[in-house]
């Protein structure tokens, strides 16, 4: 399709399944792209070029579409994603896949802070490194990072799995609830109430499945598991210093 003619999603305007809709952000306003992706009957595959670090590319999709973004994106790419498979062929800025509900978001390069923050479901795959606060307050999302994560990752993580194939920065899992963390490399330090835990059969199984879905080629046996010691669930004056 030509520039500036993103289908409206209205009668006759929807992109049929199997067809690739091309959107060049050098010539098409970002809002047109996002509105087209929000159309009730949106379908098919989308290819977005020239994102040039723009914020909020492909946010709020709620349809089983595929979106390939060719280049680096700015903040909040694929935020609130539902059902869609979004892939960034480049790096991503702050808040990639923030509050993801379902579907998959893949970034081929690195991602900045707070990747997958507050995510409730779906799968986020970072093929490079993720920086600080990856999976902060995650509430059910699964995150697989092929490289390393920065400090304060999985801060207050409530539910879901964070898999780190490289190293984890300082204060991993600070004030964690029931999320499960798997790390293959070094952990610079654990946050308050985060402890190493036994890898039981069910953990090997769920980790193996995630490693396979992310096509890592790694074995679950190479990883250690971390989670909550559950000492901070109820306030105890003896633990006041832990907060």
């Amino acid at each position, binding site marked *: 399709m030509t520039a500036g003619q993103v289908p409206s999603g209205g009668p006759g305007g929807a992109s049929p399944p199997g067809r690739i809709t091309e959107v060049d952000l050098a010539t098409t306003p970002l809002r047109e792209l996002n509105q087209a992706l929000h159309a009730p009957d949106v379908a098919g595959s989308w290819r977005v070029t020239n994102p040039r*670090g723009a914020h909020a590319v492909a946010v709020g999709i709620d349809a089983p579409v595929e979106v390939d973004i060719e280049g*680096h994106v700015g903040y909040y790419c694929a935020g609130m994603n539902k059902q869609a498979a979004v892939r960034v062929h480049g790096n991503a800025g702050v808040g990639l896949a923030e509050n993801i509900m379902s579907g998959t978001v893949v970034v081929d*390069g*690195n991602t900045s*802070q707070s990747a997958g923050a507050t995510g409730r479901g779906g799968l986020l795959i970072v093929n490079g490194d993720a*920086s*600080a606060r990856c999976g902060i307050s995650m509430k059910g999302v699964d995150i697989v990072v092929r490289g390393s994560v*920065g*400090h304060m990752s999985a801060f207050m993580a409530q539910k879901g799995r964070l898999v780190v194939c490289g190293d984890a920065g300082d204060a991993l899992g600070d004030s964690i609830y029931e999320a499960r963390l798997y790390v293959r490399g070094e952990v610079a330090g654990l946050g308050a109430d985060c402890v190493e835990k036994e890898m039981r059969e069910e953990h090997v199984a769920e980790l193996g499945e995630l490693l396979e879905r992310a096509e890592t080629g790694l074995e679950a046996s190479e990883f250690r598991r971390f989670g909550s010691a559950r000492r901070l669930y109820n306030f105890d004056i003896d633990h006041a210093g832990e907060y």
Partner: protein
Amino acid sequence: MCGIAGLFSKSPEVSESLGRHLGDMLLQLGDRGPDSAGVAIYRNPAPSGSCKVTLHSPTPGYDWNGVQVALAEAFGAGDAEVRASHSVVMVDTEADSAVAWLRERYPELRVMSAGEAIEIYKEAGHPADFLERFSFSELSGSHALGHTRMATESKVTTDGSHPFSTGLDLCLVHNGSLSNHNRLRERLRAEGIEFQTENDSEVAAGYLTWRMREGASLEQALEGCLEDLDGFYTFAVGTVDGFAVLRDPIACKPAVMAETEGWVAMASEYRAIATLPGADEARMWEPEPGQVYSWERAAVA
């Protein structure tokens, strides 16, 4: 919020268009800092024994010619190069003598910068207007820093804008906010460091000035920030032959860096870097918290 950008040229083509490139970066950061803008550009070095000063007057149509004539009589001086509310003059003496003389004779002027190569221009107003008023895109140079300001800690004025001079050929741009600046300002005043505003970033600049006056290297002075400054910051510091970057230990404020054969750049966001030639193929990374990064001309020669 604020936006910061730094560009260090490694090729004649980039040097030739340095002002245009840095201006393009600042335009992308306009919505991070729409209330003021400023730049430090390193260009046209003064010959040995001479110095270059950038002066600012809030008075429209100020008699820059008069200042130039007086400087020429006192020390010998080149032509005044007037750019909006600022004027740059080469003076045939050491920078410290020229600055002391100017402060005494022209207390109504603000010395924005002094040194061998630095020029600082800054004003309240949207970055796009700033770049146009100062015809910044026509300038060439070896490296430059820029800032777009969204004021949080003090008034929107020329004096509250960045970059802040931190000594000869040195300047600071800051994204963030400091919480112990009032107490630290008093401490530094007791050490003889002067402050013009209630601005927190000026205190960071004064801190670096003080540490280097006491013998610290730029790197040591920046590492001292990790101990002595309380608050959020990504700093970029310009030096006569390069620039340095530091983020606070919890990396509260964003920063991205990139490098190609032609340039090294840092910015608050990638979209600023995306304007540079060859950005798509640049090596790109996010600077680690609490770690000093620096580039110098000699290091890439």
